[in-house]
């Protein structure tokens, strides 16, 4: 029911000419995203963590809080985005200028993935929805999958018991 990505996103206003981060930078941010995912796991949530990075600064971080809020849309990205909006507000920046140019993620999500797995929203032309963005997939994918497996091995106590069909 949830995405399976550890994400580190980098936000820059001038989308067309943003600088792609170095590998070492990506690794550094992703490791922090993994920490967030672990925190989710420890709190009985699907282990997904997300970081939003702008000019070498973390301006938003989040982990899944679906069970806690009883709201299935409280994914790590949404939580992190709330912090980004706060950040924008404090600096009187228009959040519209922070269209995300790049998304880096851990493992693909064959069930729900919106960036190359089930759909490819990142590159589709959706003029009334938003702008397209670049995706880098597969950072420490195996580790991300391992974490998810750990979660799904334990039962989700909040989900209703499936009806037994004979």
């Amino acid at each position, binding site marked *: 029911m949830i995405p399976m990505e550890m994400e580190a996103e980098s936000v820059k206003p001038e989308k067309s000419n943003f600088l792609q981060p170095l590998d070492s930078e990506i690794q550094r941010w992703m490791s922090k995203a993994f920490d967030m995912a672990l925190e989710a796991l420890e709190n009985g949530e699907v282990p997904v963590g997300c970081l939003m990075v702008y000019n070498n600064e973390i301006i938003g971080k989040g982990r899944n809080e679906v069970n806690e809020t009883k709201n299935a849309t409280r994914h790590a990205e949404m939580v992190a985005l709330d912090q980004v909006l706060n950040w924008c507000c404090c600096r009187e920046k228009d959040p519209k200028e922070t269209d995300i140019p790049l998304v880096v993620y851990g493992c693909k999500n064959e069930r729900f993935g919106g960036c190359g797995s089930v759909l490819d929203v990142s590159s589709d032309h959706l003029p009334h*929805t938003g702008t397209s963005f670049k995706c880098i997939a597969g950072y420490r994918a195996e580790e991300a999958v391992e974490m998810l497996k750990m979660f799904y091995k334990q039962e989700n106590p909040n989900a209703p018991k499936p009806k037994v069909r004979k």
Partner: protein
Amino acid sequence: MDECDTWDVLPVLSDEQSRDTELLAAYAAPIIEKRQTSRLVKELSQIHPLPSLQHIKRVRACKDKSTPHPLEVIVCLASDVQVTDCKGVMLTDLIPSQSFDSSGLGVPFLVKIPANPPLTRPQFEKASKHWPTSFHEDKQVTSALRGQLFTADQKAKMQEYMTAAVQAAKSGEEMGMDAVGAVIVDPESEQIAAVAHDCKRGSHPLHHAVMVCIDLVACGQGGGTYDYEKYPACLFNSSETFRNACNGKENGLPYICTGYDLYVTREPCVMCAMALVHSRINRVFYGATSADGALGTKYKIHCQKDLNHHFEVFKGVMLNACEALEKK
């Protein structure tokens, strides 16, 4: 309020269910001697089996009653053989086998046959014009396509819920928001669980009406993330009767939007559509379509095969009232 007659609830079907009939070229031949029919069919199906065309009836009764031969049989797909001259094609071009006894079979000719099994009655009717096919009718889809799936009473209920969504949209618009409204309903108790309007022109760009409505349902279940005090038209049902209805459910307490229906004035975007998948919504009813819409226009998230939750989608509920919201 007797507006029910002016709008139809139409199902938003999958691409497979709504696509045009795709045709394949095939060779057919008249069966001149009727008593040879079963032998010919048997041998032809051995020489040219049509495994991907299980829906095609190998033999058809001749359309034109004046022809001397009453039956025609599919010999093979045009793509199965290499024929240089389509006009003067002979049986021996199609069936190279020496052992085949072609007695009783006439001169072959080209026909177009439906490539896919028809899934809906309109598809079946179109396909049948070309060549007879089998059809396993889903009666519910047929009556939905005719706009006859719901009774007048059910439509009156829909109108009641969509009216609440339209009202919410108008309240939002007065506060400078996009005129979009959403209502989540528990169809079992026929009670509204939450009402919301678009709030994205407020402080949060992702507060589309559907996202707000989902969070309000969560608020009603003791969760939720945001505070909507600024928006008096965004509400969840906190009445005792609703809580009692929830607690009285057979399979335990309500879990996110399981079993709930959504009424929304405009077709949801891809984010909202995915939010509805994650929230396990039961059915979605919308009024107007939208340019990047994800439940019919740009995507059909509700019938995306890889997703683990699917739901029915209907459009056109109070179409005029919903479209009028957009025009301003």
